[in-house]
């Protein structure tokens, strides 16, 4: 064994010793406890930082999930799989995650809704149009067709249909609810995916006005409310469905002249 070899050996060994020692001491003296669960949970989250859970990003949710101030199934994007993983990490069983989907409750598209005299000039976003009494359409309650919900969707699950009404692509939708927040007219609502009957109108206008501004509005005739034994109630010229009392058979769909109350159905082509 030559000296060169030994010196090299000793130098590196020595340096290793010094720094390992320093780090060991530092580790002892300077340790700060952090819940290791946070990191683990963060790892199983989708990492889209969409905020659908109501917390400021995935890491924040992980922090809250770790000390159980957020439910393990709180991540709407990750779905059941993520919920199960988190639950497993936390040592609990996850509750059933009900899938929620956004429903656009207005059918007053470019064809149905009546336009104003004046054409709107300005930024084509719903929120900006809402400021100027709603862009081109006369209705104060309906869809503005500006596509704020489409821009807001981080997953490309909202598209603007040809008639100027947004459509939800269910297979891409994660139920994060951003479109709901984006809509200045509050016509998008989250509903359980299996809920199919809706009143597709939000207008509180009196019958005459609502008929004059849109051909598919709920005119507040209240026929459905009278026939459905509390399944539908009237609120200021608008039919509202009470899903707890709803009995589908009792709703007189054929009596609704504007077809405001309808069912979503999947039909195979």
């Amino acid at each position, binding site marked *: 064994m030559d000296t060169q070899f030994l010196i090299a050996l000793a130098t590196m060994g020595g340096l*290793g010793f010094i*720094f*390992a020692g320093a*780090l*060991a001491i530092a*580790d002892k003296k300077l340790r700060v406890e952090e819940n290791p669960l946070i990191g683990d949970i963060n790892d199983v989250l989708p990492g889209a930082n969409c905020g659908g859970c109501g917390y400021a990003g995935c890491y924040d949710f992980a922090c809250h999930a770790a000390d159980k101030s957020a439910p393990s199934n709180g991540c709407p994007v990750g779905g059941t799989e993520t919920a199960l993983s988190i639950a497993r990490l936390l040592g609990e069983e996850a509750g059933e995650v009900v899938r929620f989907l956004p429903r656009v409750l207005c*059918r007053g598209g470019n064809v149905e809704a009546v336009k104003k005299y004046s054409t709107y000039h300005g930024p084509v976003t719903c929120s900006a149009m809402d400021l100027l009494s709603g862009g081109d359409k006369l209705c104060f309650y309906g869809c503005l067709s500006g596509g704020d919900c489409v821009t807001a969707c981080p997953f*490309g699950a909202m*598209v603007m249909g040809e008639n100027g009404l947004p*459509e939800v*692509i*269910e*297979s*891409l939708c994660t139920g994060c609810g951003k479109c709901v927040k984006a809509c200045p007219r509050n016509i998008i609502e989250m509903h359980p995916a299996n809920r199919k009957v809706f009143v*597709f109108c939000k207008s509180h206008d009196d019958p005459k006005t609502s008929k004059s501004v849109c051909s598919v509005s709920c005119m507040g005739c209240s026929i459905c409310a009278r026939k459905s034994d509390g399944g539908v109630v009237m609120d200021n010229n608008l039919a509202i469905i009470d899903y707890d009392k709803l009995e*589908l058979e009792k709703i007189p*769909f*054929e009596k609704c002249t504007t*077809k405001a109350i*309808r*069912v*979503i*159905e*999947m*039909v*195979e*082509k």
Partner: protein
Amino acid sequence: MSKSNSPLNDFMNGIWKQNPIFKQVLGTCPTLAVTVSIVNGVAMGLATTFVLLFSSLIISMIKKLIPNQVRIAAYIVVIATFVTIVDIVMKAQFPDLSKALGPFIPLIVVNCIILGRAEAFASKNTVVRSGFDALGMGAGFTLALIVIGSIREILGSNKLFGFVVLPDTVEPMLIFILPAGAFLTLGILFGIANNYEQKKKDKEIQKAITAERSTKLVTAPASVQTETEEA
């Protein structure tokens, strides 16, 4: 899932899906610095692959023995050792290349690809898989370097592999062998890569949209439906 665990898959991963440069944005420093010519790019790529392979193997072998607090320090010493070996061997055997790559050989130590793969893959997987992963990453890195190197060499000095490929009348754009040109080239390539991915994604979304549109109807329930409705 079982398919993605195969060594071949680990290898292919690095070539495009998780290409260290275009997807993970790792190891940009040597990428920009050495790609003035293809030869340099290839040499750098091979050197990096060598270090990547051996350090991944060693790290996945000894991962259980290392306490967490000195994990980074230990890994990086292993990496640095292999880099030094490459450096010494190159100086002895390929002095010209060693001169061209200059100070960038030692910087392989801090190439984020290597520590990144050590952390993200080798410290969690078996020796065999780590080996293939390292090879894949190395190959992806080398390929990227070759692409960038060839563009810069052609545009910047009219040459490819050191041979003149464009007629004399075309004056080379020197900027491409300068730092600024390196940034611009990589930026544009990156944009092209993103564009490709974007298109792929858009297609998927488009597919989902058309699939859904054909099946969805807003109507009264079938039982009471009285008239045909618009789709």
